[in-house]
């Protein structure tokens, strides 16, 4: 299995130690309620047969709190209607990896959590055997009941759990897993387990946490990244209604850690946020104050001409092949910084008392958050308890724990529990942005229309040879491998703006530029865009492609069939077009077709999206899977239609949803999403449907208008007739 870029990072950092094999040791259950007998850290069964399963990973809307327990319940052979689910606190010794990222929950837990369930089932069977005094092999289970085959005797799990809990846990490596043909829970649509509480407005999210005696805080950081407080009029701020105290935090220089700023703490969040109106800070803005998006574009243009740029990958002789090509295409692509804009702004509640820290955090990545708090506050990790709340969106933003360390620092000074909440401007202006990037392509076709040369000079951000987070082009980026003469070069601009992982990091930008430029080559070759891509799947080059081109070819053919591509593209009305794109990311194979109509004023309306994905042999929860891929594609559409973060004087210029626009219902088209089942282990779905959407859309707009869009977001002025 090939892991994503983010997967590698998480596996090496956050999830170290959280492997495939989960601990079956700890008998103490997550939230420690006494009712019932614990078969493992994950499973507790009460005498009335209620099976409580711990859900170990943060829920950010990806449906993990429903899906991971399905794996356990299936192999435990529980009756889903008897299953109750509780959030596990951060405790990797008991639960293994606990993070939400990289679409990794399925590949990391598909085997291990089913074995946890199977181990519990083996213990229940052993308990029944002990009760009845019968032989092994004569018992089966069905939906929460152990059955003795020969006699037909039955015992419910609830009656067996107490005995089972006294037995030795089996070796999970050797427990027998079900034949997938006999699955009763996996593969059936199971609705979100917390949805009834969500629709009643019950407090589930980080922002809803209440701790007795709690105060509320805002934390005002320098608008220029990394700036520090020189002075602040704290006395005036303290006079404002509701304000209990205000103080300067010195902070450090790590953009992912505690930065300098002013904390305002009081009895009500609105009051402390209002008190910001009275705050005047003299900032030491630091070196980033000279940086701007316009400056970056200017530097990229100059760097694109640097013939000595570092080569990432070089096959054959690209200069020579271009000189001999029948047709040469050149194009410059660019994409902007992006914010995550989780609808629940960053927040965290913390209590520091008697050397112990208790944290309630909407986080995707609690373990490194705890480590950061430990380091910054100078307390051992063992003295920090992290409660993981439901997250009002994640998208990668809550992989970075700056808000957690701020929340833990403030009560240390105040002496009371504190809920820190950012306002929307804080959230948009202090993110870890999807980095902007610039790609300068040259492609060469021979007389038959075959791609014989391909060059990308990528201008990214970094220091020396090191890219900033999420800003890398790897040597295997397709079409590397299948093109005889290929040249990937890299130049970098220094950057003081923090960057990070946004849903399908790297891929969300690279798909746009590579699938856009491949479309340009297809049209230059006068080939059907689907057939041109299929031909690349079978083109012999110096190496194999970085993914299985057979699987990608299959999803491309299927999406062409489902969208009736051949007939559709020939029969569309004026200023209406269809476009196609594919992308491999997070171990998933995705091809998408978009149909769009462009008004004479240049307004783009997507009429429909077709998607075919291949994530292996099993869709674990079909309703959740469809929700994830639909949401991912519409997320990609929202980005393409209207999102950009721009920098001026080292500051973010956007501040709310009027200038950083989210997709709305009237722009959300019908979606046809279909999965091809193939004989491969199942992989994740939170991210890989996103990358092909923007290029498929821009390719459709080209088909509709003849205008090639090479930068995002879409500029409708370019599309007016």
């Amino acid at each position, binding site marked *: 299995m090939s892991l994503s870029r983010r997967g590698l990072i998480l596996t090496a950092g956050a999830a170290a130690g959280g492997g495939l094999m989960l601990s079956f040791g700890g008998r103490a259950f997550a939230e420690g309620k006494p009712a019932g007998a614990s078969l493992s850290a994950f499973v507790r069964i009460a005498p009335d047969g209620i099976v409580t399963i711990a859900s170990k990973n943060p829920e950010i809307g990806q449906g993990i709190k429903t899906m991971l327990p399905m794996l356990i319940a299936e192999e435990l052979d529980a009756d889903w209607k008897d299953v109750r689910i509780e959030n596990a606190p951060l405790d990797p010794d008991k639960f293994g990896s606990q993070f939400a990222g990289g679409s990794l929950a399925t590949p990391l837990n598909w085997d291990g959590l089913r074995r946890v369930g199977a181990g519990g089932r083996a213990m229940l069977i052993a308990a029944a055997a002990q009760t009845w005094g019968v032989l092994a092999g004569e018992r089966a289970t069905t939906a929460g009941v152990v059955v003795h085959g020969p006699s037909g005797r039955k015992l419910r799990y609830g009656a067996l759990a107490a005995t089972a809990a006294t037995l030795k846990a089996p070796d999970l490596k050797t427990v027998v897993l079900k034949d997938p043909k006999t699955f009763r829970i996996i593969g059936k649509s199971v609705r979100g387990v917390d*949805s009834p509480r969500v*629709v*009643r407005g019950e407090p589930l999210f980080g922002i809803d946490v209440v701790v007795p005696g709690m105060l509320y805080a805002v934390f005002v950081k320098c608008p220029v990244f990394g700036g520090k407080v020189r002075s602040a009029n704290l006395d005036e701020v303290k006079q404002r209604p509701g304000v209990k105290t205000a103080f300067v935090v010195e902070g450090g220089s790590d953009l992912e850690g505690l930065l300098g700023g002013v904390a305002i703490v009081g009895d009500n969040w*609105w009051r402390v946020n209002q008190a910001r109106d009275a705050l005047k800070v003299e900032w030491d803005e630091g070196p980033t104050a000279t940086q701007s998006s316009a400056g970056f574009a200017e530097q990229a243009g100059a760097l694109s001409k640097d013939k000595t740029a570092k080569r990432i990958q070089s096959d054959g002789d690209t200069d020579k092949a271009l000189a001999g090509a029948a047709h040469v295409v050149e194009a410059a692509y660019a994409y902007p910084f992006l914010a995550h804009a989780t*609808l629940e702004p960053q927040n965290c509640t913390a209590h520091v008392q008697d050397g112990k820290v208790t944290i309630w955090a909407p986080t995707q990545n609690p373990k490194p958050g705890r480590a950061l708090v430990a380091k910054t506050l100078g307390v051992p990790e063992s003295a920090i308890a992290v409660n993981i709340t439901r997250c009002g969106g994640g998208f990668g933003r809550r992989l970075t724990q700056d808000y957690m360390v701020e929340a833990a620092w403030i009560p240390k000074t105040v002496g009371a529990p504190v809920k820190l909440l950012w306002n*929307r401007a804080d959230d948009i202006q202090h993110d870890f942005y999807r980095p902007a990037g610039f790609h300068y392509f040259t492609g060469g076709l021979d007389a038959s229309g075959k791609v014989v040369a391909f060059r990308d000079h990528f201008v990214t951000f970094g220091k020396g040879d090191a890219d900033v987070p999420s800003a890398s082009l790897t040597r295997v980026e397709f079409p590397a491998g299948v093109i005889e003469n290929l040249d990937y070069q890299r130049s970098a601009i220094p950057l003081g703006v923090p960057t990070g992982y946004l849903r399908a990091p790297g891929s969300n930008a690279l798909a746009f530029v590579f699938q856009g430029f491949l479309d340009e080559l297809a049209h230059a070759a006068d080939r059907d865009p689907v057939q041109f891509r299929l031909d690349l799947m079978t083109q012999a080059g110096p190496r194999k492609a970085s993914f299985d081109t057979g699987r990608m070819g299959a999803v491309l053919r299927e999406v062409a069939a489902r969208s009736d591509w051949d007939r559709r593209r020939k029969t569309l009305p004026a200023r209406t077009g269809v476009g196609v794109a594919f992308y491999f990311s997070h171990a998933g194979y995705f091809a998408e077709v978009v149909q769009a109509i462009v008004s004479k004023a240049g307004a783009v309306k997507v009429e429909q999206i077709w998607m075919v994905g291949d994530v292996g042999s099993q869709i674990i929860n079909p309703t*959740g899977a469809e929700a994830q891929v639909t949401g991912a594609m519409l997320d990609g559409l929202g980005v393409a239609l209207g999102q950009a973060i721009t920098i001026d004087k080292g500051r973010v210029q956007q501040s709310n*949803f009027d200038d950083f626009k989210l997709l709305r*219902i009237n722009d*959300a088209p019908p979606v046809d999403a279909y999965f091809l089942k193939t004989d491969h282990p199942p992989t994740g779905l939170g991210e890989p449907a996103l990358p092909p959407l923007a290029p498929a859309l821009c390719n459709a707009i080209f088909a509709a208008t003849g205008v090639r869009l090479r930068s995002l977001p879409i500029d409708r002025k370019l599309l007016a007739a």
Partner: protein
Amino acid sequence: MTISLNVNGETRRAEVEGDMPLLWVLRDVLDLKGSKFGCGAGLCGACTVHLDGRPVRACVTPVSAVGPAKVTTIEGVGATALGARVQASWIETDVVQCGYCQAGQIMSATALLAKTPKPTDADIDAAMRGNACRCCTYPRIRAAIKHAAGLSTADTRLVKA
């Protein structure tokens, strides 16, 4: 000042400034956490509540402007048959992803159906476009509204080949 509010059929009193937005009175004074803070500027709809059945953005509604109007929040909307039907439809359609915006979505959807029991797609677009969903659950929001209205949930906007 002492403000008296009718919230979900009960009289509630709060000792707050008149310019405090209704959202923060509900959340942090009356401890009704269902209405959500997303933007503070009436741009995302996460804070939507009803005043006498009319959907308003609580984050930009000063509490002093509420007066005798009946405030209904997500915690109270299920007390009406229509509100309960919309909540049930949301569950049955499996709309929720992260869920943060859904209180506001349900409040806007309930207000729409109270006025327009059989909404068209255009009616849904007009009534719901002020409610952003960052997870983009829009196709299921549309389906859940139609289901609650007793309409077919098939997406009639599908294009023909």
